[in-house]
């Protein structure tokens, strides 16, 4: 199996579908105990030149004992040019969330979010967005203005396109999804460990360098409801025909285990993997690493098994 990409600056045809992923930082101006900082992702898939549908997930990285507070949602939005490089954008989302000692604040969990702001295209693929808005939990007491900012990455794939009409501008892209099981020591004093399952989605920008997302949830121990999400980056390659190595770091949020050791949720993680390619698509690997809650009291080594699955997609790039 060869992990690689062909990069080019080429036009996008009308048959390509535009996607914009944003690495989001969000600030809540009020809650029952101060402000809250959130980190996460939005994934926008365009239905035409300006209208998109959105998936989003954000988790607390700042505030007072907000570890584990998270909100996920979906909705619709728009991105309309208003000047060279500048776009007017906005979105309406229905979502669900809770945790982080916000039981009264989030009630049953239903949330509505309204946002509008500006997007600036640094180049055809990368940009920056800033928006203002409002978040409302109608069953709860959390109603707050919000401000969001984030780095945006625009890319294209080809949907419902005849394979006989392969676009000349198509480029090859590689992604690797690993399904992970990992364990770490949650409480150093008592030796309490928990196990998680989840995955990492790697998007290669060179034959070996990738970035992507990771997400996990607890499956054993007594911390059901504990979750993690992170932005990851690293290097993955193959040597001696079938052996795989992978080094990476992640920064994100975790919490929901119900212990103040989680702090405000902000966490960093590192990992090193060594594995074996079972086929050109599947690989089995073992990882060791570290994880640390930056403002909390959980610092542990991590270990676990990973099953990797390689995806080869055809994508476009903009002029």
């Amino acid at each position, binding site marked *: 199996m060869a992990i690689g990409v*062909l*990069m*080019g*600056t*080429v036009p996008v045809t009308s048959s390509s*579908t535009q996607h914009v992923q944003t690495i989001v930082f969000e600030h809540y101006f009020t809650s029952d105990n101060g402000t809250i900082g959130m980190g996460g992702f939005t994934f926008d898939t365009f239905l035409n030149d300006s209208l998109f549908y959105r*998936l989003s997930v954000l988790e607390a990285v700042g505030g007072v004992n907000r570890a*584990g*507070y*998270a909100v*996920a949602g*979906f909705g619709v939005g728009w991105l309309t040019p208003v000047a060279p490089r500048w776009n007017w954008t906005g979105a309406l989302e*229905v*979502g*669900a*969330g*809770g945790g982080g000692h*916000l*039981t009264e604040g*989030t*009630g*049953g*969990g*239903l949330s509505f979010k309204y946002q509008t702001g500006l997007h600036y295209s640094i180049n055809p693929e990368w940009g920056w967005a800033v928006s203002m808005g409002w978040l409302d*939990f109608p069953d*709860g007491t959390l109603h707050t203005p919000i401000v969001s900012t984030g780095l945006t990455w625009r890319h294209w*794939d080809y*949907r*419902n*396109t005849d*394979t006989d009409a*392969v676009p*000349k*501008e*198509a*480029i*090859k892209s590689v992604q690797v999804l690993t*399904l992970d099981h990992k364990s770490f020591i949650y409480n150093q004093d008592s030796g309490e460990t928990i196990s*998680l*399952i*989840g*995955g990492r989605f790697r998007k290669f920008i060179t034959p070996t360098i990738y970035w992507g997302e990771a*997400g996990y*949830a*607890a*499956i*054993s*121990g*007594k*911390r*059901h*409801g*504990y*979750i993690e999400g992170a932005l990851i980056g690293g290097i993955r390659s193959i040597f001696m025909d079938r052996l795989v190595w992978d080094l990476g770091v992640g920064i994100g949020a975790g919490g*929901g285990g*119900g212990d103040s050791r989680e702090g405000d949720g902000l966490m960093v993680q590192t990992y090193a993997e060594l594995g074996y390619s079972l086929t050109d698509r599947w690989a089995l690997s073992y990882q060791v690493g570290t994880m640390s809650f930056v403002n909390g009291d959980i610092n542990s080594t991590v270990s676990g098994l990973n099953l990797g699955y390689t*995806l*080869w*997609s*055809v994508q476009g790039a903009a002029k």
Partner: protein
Amino acid sequence: MKIISLALIFSASILLTPLIGTERHIEHFYYENYLGDNQGLTGLIGYYHDTYISPHVYFTVGTAWATTGFHGGYGTAALGLGYSAPLNADLEWDAKVMVGAGGHFLIEAGGGILTQWQTGLRHRLADHFYGEIRYGGLNYPNGNYSVNTLSYGVAVDYSVLTWK
């Protein structure tokens, strides 16, 4: 630079042509009710993404989060395998089994591991757009919480080009 770009485009075209294929995906957006002894946890919104690894078998991954029943913050994330088959030109049946994780301090979810199954029908409403209804079950094997599920929502399907 232009020559290099053109060379890359040419290389890509040459390499892509014999290797091109398609892969079906379905995205599901739905509302889910927990039925039976739900301990007050009644409704969730969810999103699942199916990636077909053969004409009928797919890999699925997704998440659902509580919206009603004063269990804000309860959520599940699961992955699994499914099978679908057309019943006629507009109607498709599918079934899937999943394993995942979830929890909330108000329910007895054990360590958080869960098993889940669903079966349902989807009906084409427009090109690549469906309405669907699903019935299933969810269980925390190490806890003490088990419900049936009834889900309804919409789905979109599409094929994407792949090069291998």
